[in-house]
């Protein structure tokens, strides 16, 4: 028997690796170990006051700090029965789109493209293809600026608070964002040109279940409160408060993250799932781009998540422009946040983070202090599906060469864009 071990998917020693056991041509155990920092945070939240919670959870991750903040605020507002204003919803969606633009630009241009073109890193790619890397950096910077403008800070937003916003952006700031977004909109052909020119990555075909927030209207991924699960012929709806029937977590011996299955089936969350569940916006420019990328839905290739991210990047830019136009047309009111009256109870919120469904559920006591907290990240939700796709990829790989298998599994793992250990950040010397 031979064992293939792919380490260093994460920067935490001994976590985030893939292990494949092979007995001749037969695939034995396939294990994916995820280090789940978010879960470790739950005990830390115990006893914290409702207005301390979002600032703490925003630090789970630098890349997803806006999504964690907004999910946290929504869960607290659900617990206290607070309804925020339509302007707050719009500004929060803009913040989330900024995070998505930043995250997708980083992932597509600085991580996925080097992978497809067989470069060891974005720096190596930049030596040969500086235009691609600079385009990625420009889009990432725009996403940063959006978050800084709306969130009040580039990392870990401070403006969004329970019930609304501490400070709203000025018209001048929105006009500045609009000009950046118009430039990005003009760049969208270049994004698709680059993606369409990448070599095909077809390592595993497998019927896949997809789960995403179902939008109550065509435009928003932020404001839904039910999840739709789609497979080849079936659709099921799970209301936010029933999220445990979706997540159905089971501890597995080899991983720090519990595995989630829906009615026994692993499911995928993220960009590809969102487009599968909410295809209504895939018209006009996006339909043309989708055709150029040869993407059909529902997809049976997890690598298509990279294409879906590129489509979302374009959609995020267009939708952000629409929001800003609306805000400029209607004017930004200097609203106070809705007053928070703490009460004992439980609140649940689900938001689409860049990598997929993010769930926060808090139980508060009558003074508004956390009794218990449940934080489920997209990477944890994807773990079982990733493992299934790794297995299929090994089974479908015509070669038994370790390097070939390792490269394929690494690329599939990265296509999921996992947030394995955002919490840790160490430099390693040669």
């Amino acid at each position, binding site marked *: 028997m031979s064992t293939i071990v792919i380490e*260093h*998917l*994460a*920067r*935490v020693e001994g976590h*985030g690796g893939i292990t494949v056991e092979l007995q001749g041509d037969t695939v034995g155990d396939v294990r994916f170990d995820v280090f789940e*920092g978010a879960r*470790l*945070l739950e005990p*830390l939240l115990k006893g914290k006051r409702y207005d301390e919670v979002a600032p*703490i959870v925003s*630090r*789970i*991750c*630098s*890349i997803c*700090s806006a999504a964690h903040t907004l999910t946290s605020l929504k869960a607290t507002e659900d617990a206290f029965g607070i309804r925020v204003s339509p302007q707050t919803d719009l500004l929060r969606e803009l913040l989330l789109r900024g995070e998505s633009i*930043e995250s997708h630009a*980083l*992932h597509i241009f*600085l*991580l996925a493209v*080097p992978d497809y073109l067989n470069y*060891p*890193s*974005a*720096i*190596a790619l*930049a030596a040969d293809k*500086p235009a691609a*890397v*600079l385009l990625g*950096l420009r889009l*990432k*910077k725009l996403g*940063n*600026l959006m978050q*800084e403008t709306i969130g009040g800070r*580039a*990392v*870990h937003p401070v403006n969004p608070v329970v019930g609304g916003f501490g400070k709203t952006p000025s018209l001048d700031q929105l006009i500045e964002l609009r000009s950046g977004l118009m430039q990005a909109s003009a760049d969208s052909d270049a994004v698709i040109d680059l993606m369409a020119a990448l070599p095909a990555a077809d390592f595993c075909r497998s019927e896949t279940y997809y789960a995403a927030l179902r939008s109550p209207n065509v435009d928003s991924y932020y404001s839904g409160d039910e999840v739709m699960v789609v497979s080849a012929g079936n659709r099921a709806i799970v209301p936010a408060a029933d999220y445990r029937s979706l997540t159905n977590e089971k501890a597995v011996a080899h991983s720090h993250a519990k595995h989630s299955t829906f009615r026994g089936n692993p499911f995928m969350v993220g960009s590809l799932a969102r487009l599968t569940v909410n295809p209504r916006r895939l018209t006009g420019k996006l339909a043309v781009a989708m055709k150029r990328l040869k993407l059909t839905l529902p997809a049976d290739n997890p690598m298509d998540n990279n294409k879906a991210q590129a489509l979302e990047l374009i959609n995020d830019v267009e939708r952000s422009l629409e929001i800003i136009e609306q805000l400029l047309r209607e004017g930004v009111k200097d609203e106070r946040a809705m007053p928070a009256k703490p009460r004992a109870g439980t609140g649940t919120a689900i938001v689409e983070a860049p990598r997929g469904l993010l769930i926060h559920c808090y139980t508060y006591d009558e003074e508004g202090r956390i009794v218990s907290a449940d934080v489920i990240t997209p990477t944890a939700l994807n773990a079982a599906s990733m493992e299934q796709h790794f297995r299929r990829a090994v089974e479908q790989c015509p070669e038994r060469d370790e390097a070939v298998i390792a490269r394929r599994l690494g690329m599939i*793992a*990265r296509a999921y*864009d*996992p*947030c*394995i*250990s*955002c*919490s*840790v*950040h*160490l*430099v*390693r*010397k*040669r």
Partner: protein
Amino acid sequence: MKPVAVIGLGNPLMGDDGIGWHVAERLAADPRLPDGVEAIQGGTDLLRCAARIEGRRRVIVVDAVRDDAAPGTVSEIGEGEAEERQEHAHHLSAAQAMGLLRMTMPVSFTLLGVSVSQARMEERLSAELAGRMPAILDRVLEELR
């Protein structure tokens, strides 16, 4: 915008991984910090700080480093000395981010690594590293002279 910035990286929720973050916090309140220098708590992604870097003359990045030195040892990590391998599935290391930023802006970067031996979910630094804080601050301030 001040011409020089010290950007401390790390996650304060992950014990000693947060050393850069804590260094920036302490420096910001330190009367010895020269006038033309701003201390910034940068989180875990240096690229996110791009807008706060652009336009400065010099940026010193302080980050945790895993090597064989005693915890709290501060060493300058030269260009090419950190691993270039893309080992994180999801974002770039400080060294890689610095490489990309060098391409886009004429800023002089220095990477100071503070050796750590552990990074686990904890809201504070280990006693060992906290005890070394005065010496770490001295070393960073020396870099600013």
